[in-house]
């Protein structure tokens, strides 16, 4: 009884994850520029993969600890990588959406390490 | 069931390989070849060779892509500017 319930709960988790992953893909397709796309991409894929892996852990009970560890690692690293992509693409000068209204980053002074030069 | 998934992966891998061969930019060629490695490692897994799959994913998709990009950066630094 409990096993069947946990299995169905896992199926629900997996389907939620798949739905959010689909939304992330749709967001990457529809939104206008890199930063907006990253917004959709990061949030949707993080919740999607975390929920899917926990669902798999509930369906196959031998893997639940693995799944939780995977989820924690993803929660730690996914925002960092998206931060790196956003920073690098701003730094390189990727075109941003024209209606981006306040752009505080433009006024920021970049620190250069010794020996580095501005291009 | 698995055969359809695998065929889909094969088609994607072949397209990525074509991109890697024909693209003008070297950086996109390198990234495409990294994705080729990832897809091929999935195929290895389906063909019941998880050992090779893990090796391919770690070395082919992870490390060698990074080393190629670093090498590309080094080579571009040595090029003369007026060629670009």
């Amino acid at each position: 009884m409990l096993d069947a319930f946990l299995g169905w709960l896992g199926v629900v988790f997996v389907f939620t994850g798949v739905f959010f992953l689909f939304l992330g893909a749709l967001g990457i397709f529809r939104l206008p520029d890199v930063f907006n796309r990253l917004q959709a991409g990061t949030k949707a894929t993080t919740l999607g993969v975390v929920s899917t892996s926990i669902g798999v852990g509930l369906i196959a009970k031998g893997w639940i600890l693995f799944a939780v560890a995977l989820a924690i690692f993803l929660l730690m690293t996914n925002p960092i990588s998206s931060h790196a992509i956003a920073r690098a693409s701003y730094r390189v000068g990727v075109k941003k959406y024209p209606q981006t209204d306040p752009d505080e980053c433009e006024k920021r002074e970049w620190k250069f390490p010794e020996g580095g030069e501005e291009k | 069931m698995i055969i359809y998934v695998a065929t889909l992966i094969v088609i994607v891998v072949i397209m990525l390989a074509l991109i890697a061969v024909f693209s003008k930019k070297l950086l996109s060629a390198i990234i495409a070849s990294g994705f080729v490695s990832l897809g091929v490692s999935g195929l290895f897994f389906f063909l019941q060779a998880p050992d090779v799959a893990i090796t391919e994913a770690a070395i082919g998709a992870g490390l060698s892509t990074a080393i190629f990009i670093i090498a590309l950066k080094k080579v571009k630094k040595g090029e003369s500017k007026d060629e670009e």
Partner: protein
Amino acid sequence: MERVESSAGSRYLYAVVVYFFLWIVLTYPFSIHEWEAGAAIALLGALLTYKQLSVSGMKNIERLGILLFWYLPVFIWEMLKANLHVAAIVLNPKMPIKPGIVKIKTNLKSPVAKVWLANSITLTPGTLSMDIDGQYLYIHWIKVKTKDVEKATQEIAGSFEKILEAMFK
């Protein structure tokens, strides 16, 4: 950048504890052989890499209570809200976005706390931390409500900053 380092012994002990716990998780069906090997690997591996893992050492374990019972519920709730927000924007045919990059000021001192804050901001509704410069964080906001630094700080980082201040005293 201020940096409060614990003693090397405390950091080493923390690394050993974390490695041993992770090893047990990785080799899940418990067996005594795996535990022996895990203890040896934790002791040796921590010797090589304890400098990388943590700055504040065993203090991190005391923070676990706040993390589990205060931070995590807030965080999960915010993450769900963020995803529903993304869904609402993406599925709306008009796509109501009004993006902008705003600047917020944080009072947190320790680097790890700043990273926690930036990660939490990235996973909460409509915001993405783009850059960090001392006490200022640059945030890409998908629907700008205010351009003022103070109000933006209150709006974006308010709920997490309290918790993180309590955590990283």
